[in-house]
Every structure is written in C-alpha cells, then in structure tokens.
C-alpha cells in the first residue's frame, strides 16, 4: 500500500465516524429516523474502491473497539461487538468491499444508475443478508422475527443509497480516486 | 549546542562541507501542464527565500528539494545525492514543513506526534524521549505533552509541526508558506523560530518581511526564476513588478 492509500483509509474511517456523530434525521413517511453512518459505508466503497473501502471500515471498527464513542448514538467500545445487532457492524467492511467492487466494474461508464446498483446491492442487500441472520442466531430468535424487526429501517437505507450514489457520481467527476489496472500491467 | 550547525558555522567556511542543493536543468510537468521549466541553480546559503504569485511553480520547487516531487526531466542533487534514486536519504537530510499544520499532524496527542518521525528513522526510544522533551520545552509546549493535538491553537499547531521535523535532526528545512494560515502574532512567532534555527532553511512565502535577514531570494514567475539575489535587490523588484 502506498502512503496515499493509508491516508485515504484513515480519513474515510474518520468520515464514517463523523457521520455517526450527526443526529438522526426524521423523514416524513419513514417510521424510524435515519442515521447517517451507513452513508459513510457506501461512500467509502464507491469513492475508494473495494480494497481501500473495506480497509477503511475495518479501521473504523478498530477505532470503535478501542473505545471511541463514534457509532451513531454515541456508542462505542467492545460492548457493541457482542451486542445483538453486532452482525450489522461486521457486515460493513463486506458491504464497502462489494460496493467498491461493483463500482470498479462499472468505472468506465460510471453514472447514477450504476452507482445505485452498487449501493443498493452492497449497502442494503449485503448488510441485511449478514445482519439479520446474525441477530437471529445470536439472540436465538426466529429468522422471520429478526427480518420483520428490521423492515422499518429499509426505506431509510434506500434513501441513503440514493444520496450516496448522487455524491459518488459528483466525486467521480470532480476528483476520481479509483485507478483501474491498465491493460498492459495485467497482460504483462 | 545540540544541533551544532550554527555553532560550527563560525569556523572558517572552507573547512566545512556546506550542505548544497543543486538543480540541473530541471523541468516539471503535471500531465501536459508545465509548472517548472529548465531550472538550473545551486543553493548553499543558510537562508534562502522563495517568492512569486500563485501557480508560479514555487510550491513544486520546494517539493523537489526533498524528493516529495521528482523532476519530469533533469536532476536534483542534495549533497550530491540524486533525489530520484536516494529519496530516503535525501528526506533524512531535508525536513519539510507544510502550509496547513492540520494536514501534517498525524497522531492524536502532542508527544505521540513528535515521536512519529524519529520512530520511522529507527531512533532508539530513550533518545526519542530525550529529543521530544527537548523540543517541548523549547517551543513552550511542555504543558501540552499529552494533550489532543486538535485542541492546540493554530500557532501552536504550526510550532508542533516544526518541532516534529526538528526531532528528526535534518540538515536543512524547507518551509512551504508556513505562516499563510496564521494571524499576525503567530506569524511573528514562527518567523522568530525559523530565524533561530541552526539548520539551513528554504522558505517559500507570501510574507515578504519574513525574508529581511535572508542571504538569497528567488522570485518565481511562470515556472522560471525571474530574479535571484539578495532581499534588497529582489524584493523591491518583485513588489514593483506586481503593482
């Protein structure tokens, strides 16, 4: 990893933390207030790409683990890793990786539609696919109960995926960071 | 005197190998935008100032001096070492202080940040502690040792950034607009700190009064050295030119 990558990883981990410090926003028509933190997961993936995005989230989790209260609601420390919803936390590096991977796949023709696909698949589907079964296994409740309990959050996550996609497209135009391997390097 | 340069400099000049930075026909371009074109010069003076408008190439020039930027063509030699092939050794000799102190403080607390550079250099922990104590006292930061760097004032942060370079014991320090983001009082304070350094310095600045006692001033314009001489010759020329 280049020094530049270390800086990207540390600063995006910090962005995820800062978004967690913002108070939740109530949105009309959506049952639970939206927290901005998973927006950071989506941004890390779609701006930095798969590898650096996933690392940024791993570093963010390390920062939470060493006691920084930077999870939304001012939570932090090791407790959150053993709590019933810890699966959602563990899903974040995977989600950022998937978002980054999908973004890299579509990088040459990247637009709002591709960004939306990446953020919905990585930032919503992947997160719930890991978080819900974790809760169900961990707390010993039926999968269905765990799923219906999470339904209320899905509209907010879709809103965030749209927001992240708009930002990703704007940043892609103004300051692209993802570098695709050139043909020559792979063909070597 | 611990750093020894100034003390040693009182000896006859011939007996001392002065640090020297030499640029041989250096051109630098970012993509197809040429920011420096065929610069050739040698810096041996203890105090060198660099002035010029935004985009004149002076920031890139500063970064060439310690290998942060490598020339597109031509050669930069620091004490005879090519920055292209000996970047690590060059960086050990030439420290760099940036404009924005916030971008160069990397650790959460003051003492940890000061230890960063010498740790990278492989300096023994006991020696690092000694150097850190030394600069903390020297710059009036000894009460802030375990403070979050974030809570320091802008002036204190820039002093911390300078201290973070000093603990690495470089021979020459390049400053890229070190006072641009500071208020008047802190600008004066940093100017005094630079003035008192034993090291040779190169200062890129818009604050012309910083250059009063300097040995040599370069004026950059469109990627070329438009004037080169003592502050008394160059600064009035530059001021006349822009007004």
């Amino acid at each position: 990893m280049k020094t530049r990558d270390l800086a990207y990883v540390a600063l995006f981990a910090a962005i995820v933390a800062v978004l967690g410090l913002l108070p939740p926003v109530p949105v009309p028509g959506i049952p639970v207030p939206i927290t901005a933190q998973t927006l950071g997961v989506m941004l890390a993936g779609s701006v930095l790409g798969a590898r650096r995005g996933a690392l940024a989230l791993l570093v963010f989790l390390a920062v939470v683990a060493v006691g920084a209260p930077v999870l939304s609601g001012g939570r932090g420390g090791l407790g959150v890793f053993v709590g019933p919803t810890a699966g959602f936390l563990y899903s974040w590096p995977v989600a950022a990786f998937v978002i980054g991977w999908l973004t890299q796949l579509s990088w040459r023709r990247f637009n709002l539609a591709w960004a939306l696909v990446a953020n919905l698949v990585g930032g919503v589907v992947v997160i719930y696919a890991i978080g819900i079964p974790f809760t169900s296994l961990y707390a010993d409740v039926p999968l269905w109960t765990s799923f219906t309990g999470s339904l209320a959050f899905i509209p907010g996550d879709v809103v965030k995926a749209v927001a992240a996609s708009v930002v990703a497209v704007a940043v892609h135009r103004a300051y692209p960071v993802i570098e695709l391997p050139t043909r020559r390097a792979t063909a070597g | 005197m611990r750093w020894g340069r100034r003390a040693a400099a009182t000896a006859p000049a011939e007996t001392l190998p002065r640090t020297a930075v030499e640029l041989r026909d250096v051109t630098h371009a970012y993509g197809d935008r040429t920011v420096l074109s065929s610069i050739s010069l040698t810096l041996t003076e203890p105090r060198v100032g660099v002035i010029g408008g935004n985009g004149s190439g002076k920031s890139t020039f500063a970064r060439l001096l310690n290998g942060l930027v490598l020339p597109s063509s031509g050669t930069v030699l620091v004490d005879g070492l090519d920055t292209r092939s000996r970047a690590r050794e060059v960086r050990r000799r030439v420290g760099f202080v940036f404009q924005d102190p916030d971008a160069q403080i990397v650790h959460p607390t003051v003492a940890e940040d000061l230890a960063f550079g010498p740790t990278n250099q492989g300096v023994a922990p006991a020696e690092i502690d000694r150097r850190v104590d030394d600069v903390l006292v020297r710059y009036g930061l000894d009460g802030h040792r375990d403070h979050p760097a974030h809570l320091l004032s802008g002036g204190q942060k820039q002093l911390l950034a300078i201290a973070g370079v000093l603990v690495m014991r470089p021979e020459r320090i390049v400053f890229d607009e070190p006072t641009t983001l500071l208020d008047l009082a802190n600008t004066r304070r940093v100017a005094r700190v630079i003035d008192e350094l034993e090291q040779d310095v190169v200062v890129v600045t818009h604050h012309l009064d910083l250059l009063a006692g300097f040995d040599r001033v370069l004026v950059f314009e469109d990627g070329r050295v438009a004037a080169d001489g003592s502050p008394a010759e160059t600064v009035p020329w530059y001021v006349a030119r822009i007004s």
Partner: protein
Amino acid sequence: MLSLYLPGASPVHRAPAGLKLAVLAALGVGLFLVSRVEVVAGALAAVLAVGLAVARLPGRALWAQVRPVWIWLAALFVVHLLVTGPLPGAVAVLRLLTLVLAAAVVTATTRVTALVAVVEWLVQPLRLVGVRPARVGLVVAMTLRFIPLLAERAARIREAQTARGAERVRLGLLVPLVISVLQLAHTLSEALDARGADDTPARPLRRAAGSVGPA
C-alpha cells in the same frame, strides 16, 4: 476527549490490556456454551462486582453502554416469552447483558494506546500476507486524530452553505466534505512521506514484474 476510558488505579485498570481482552473473549464463548440461568446470572453478578466494586466505575458509565440495547433486550424477552418461554428468555437476555457490561468494563479501564497496541499485536500473523502491524497502528491513530478535525470541517461547510441561503444542507454538505477530505489525503500523504513513513519497504520486491521466470 474521544474515548470511553475512565482513568483509575484499580487492579482492573492495571491489568494488561491483552489479558482483559482474553478474559472477555473467553466469557463470550463460555456464556454461549451454558444455558443454566443461575450460571449466567452468576456471571452477570461477577461482572458487576468487578466493574463497580473492584474497578470503582460509576454505575452511570456502565448504564450508558446498556441503554442503547435496553429496548432491544426487552423486545427479545417478549419474543422468547411468546416462542420458547420465560426461562430461555431470561438466559438469552442475561447473557447479552453480561457481555455488553463486561465489554464496557474493559473499555472503561483500558487506555486507547494500550488497546491500539493489542490491535497491532493481533494483526501480527497478517505479516505473512504483507501487512505491517505498525502501519495498522498508525492508521488507527490517524483516524482518531482526524475525527475531530473532520467534524469541525463539516460544521464549517454547513455554516458556509447556510450563509449562502441553503436550507437543507445534508446532501450538499457531503460533496465538498468528501472532496476536501480527498485533498487533505494528498497533503497528508506528502507529510507522512516527508517524515519518513515509507522508510522501510513494504515487503521484499521479489516478484517484480520483470523477474517472473519461465514456468
């Protein structure tokens, strides 16, 4: 300060961070192996005793960690009541409560730097795939250092936008914030290099592109 650490001189505070984390991990595994309510309740009592009596942590600090999951634990108990009965419900709730509290005790009694050192130690095996533990520690430290700075920048961007009449700033805030962070990353990486962050090579460049021999 950006930390949940509460200074103190108790034996719990002075115990090595690695030991505390090992005990926490063992507790995590152990609690899931038993389902007898008295064992789990005993563990909870022990954790509370260590936290409140030995480490002398204020009850408020521990409660602050439990509060966010409190509703969830209550809901969990209700679900169990309907599906499996009161006793398994009590075990499930007490188990989670114990773990959350134990983790809170470790966090409150261990310095950030000590935990970062443990993180560096834990990633030692990853040396094999080219990860340098010291760099992991550096990135974690840099993140802690930049969180307050970015929070401040976000606030400043919000002010600038409000000053220009923007009412809804959430999304508009993000583009300038992300771009300013990318620019900051550029200067920061220069500053890291200038201070010798790349002094040791990442790994021996044995498999450089040109050196791949015939298969």
